[in-house]
């Protein structure tokens, strides 16, 4: 439970931290996202109810702090990010046995892909609202770039979270023997 609460605190810190991380101008203004990595780690580390709680919390924060309300229109309704996080986290959770056995690299790659999927879904939603589909190289970079960066950061973030889980005595680490 302590680990779960710590993950919620880390999601909050990461979401606030993202405000202060400047986009990478040399990579088509690519943003760096930390929250998806924590959510996807939670997906493989936590049981389903707690995983859903993390997805819910992270989704609410993301929507509350980024979605724009212009006049009487909301571009992406509050709640869509919750759904996206929950579905993608659910997929990751399905591969949990591999992670518990120590095969973290698949989840690191998947975290990057899922980060890009969130951005792609957001882009499709705003494109649907605003009209005129634009898919320039810049768009692809702004969707794929954060995913690539997330993939590169995943081993470090996963290692840190793994260490926190170990320090707090979180139970999933002991499940390894069950799978082996």
């Amino acid at each position, binding site marked *: 439970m302590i680990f779960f609460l710590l993950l919620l605190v880390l999601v909050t810190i990461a979401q606030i931290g993202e*405000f202060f991380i400047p986009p990478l101008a040399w990579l*088509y203004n690519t943003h760096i996202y930390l929250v998806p990595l924590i959510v996807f780690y939670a997906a493989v580390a936590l049981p389903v109810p707690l995983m859903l709680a993390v997805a819910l919390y992270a989704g609410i*924060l993301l*929507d509350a*702090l980024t*979605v*724009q*309300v212009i006049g009487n229109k*909301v571009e992406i309704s*509050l709640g869509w990010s919750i759904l996206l996080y929950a579905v993608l986290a659910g997929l990751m959770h399905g591969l949990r046995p591999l992670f518990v056995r120590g095969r973290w690299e698949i989840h690191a790659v998947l975290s990057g892909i899922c980060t890009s999927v969130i951005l792609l879904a957001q882009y499709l939603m705003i494109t649907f609202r605003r009209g005129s589909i634009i898919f320039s190289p810049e768009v692809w970079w702004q969707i794929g770039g954060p995913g690539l960066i997330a993939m590169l950061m995943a081993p470090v973030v996963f290692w840190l979270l793994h260490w926190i889980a170990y320090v707090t005595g979180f139970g999933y680490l002991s499940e390894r023997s069950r799978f082996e």
Partner: protein
Amino acid sequence: MSRTNFIALLIFGVILGYFLSFGAESTRKFQAGIYQLIAPFLSSGSGLQKQITSVRTGLKTLEQLERESAQLRVENRELRATNQALRDVEREVNSLRHQLNYRERSVFKLVPAVVVTRDSSTWWHTVTVNRGREDGIEGDMAVVTDEGLVGKTTTVASSISVVLLVSDENCKVAATVEGTREQGIVSGERVTSGLTPSLYLNFLSKQADLKPGQKVYTSGVGGVFPSGLPVGVVKSFRVRELDGQAQLTPAVDLSHLEDVFIVTGRK
């Protein structure tokens, strides 16, 4: 599926449904609440970031600071004098307009604000500023600098507000072109590749034939942005199938915003 998971999914579905049912007003209120909760962290984070940046850019010597201070004092005196002179002119103009039965032209009431954070998302161009409802800020108020238009306020919490930048595709500004009768709507790009975004002035006539360097100002149509605020400078002009479109360089450097003013009304 275990019973616990089923119940968790059910509760999750209910909460998700509740959030998805939010309308524009409830979303705005909810966002304002969350922004207010994290406002202290954003402010302290911004302060910390500024301190780090100032250390990184290098400490100044006492001599440099004295020189800078003297320069600023002179500039301040000049500005005060100009301001006084302009106030006299304003009074005179208003008195003449009054005699001619024209409506008096008044200057804006401005609330100074500091940019706390820049946009954290890929698809929306926003900044947050350290002023909110407590300072008389409301939604849809124009935000400017001494160089020109920055954007408008959207979500407003008690002590913090979100400003939608003019470079966002959703920020539409009615504008006119200097020295012509051309009017159009300025909006930003959906995706910016560099740090300096471009603006687009749409719905111009095909015969507009704008030249690079011509200035674009707000026309005041729509009521959100007062007229006469510089929006940008024409970079290029092209004729499309139905209208003319000009590409603009924003009047304000939106990537290095620090201090802005929120137009809260007229004096």
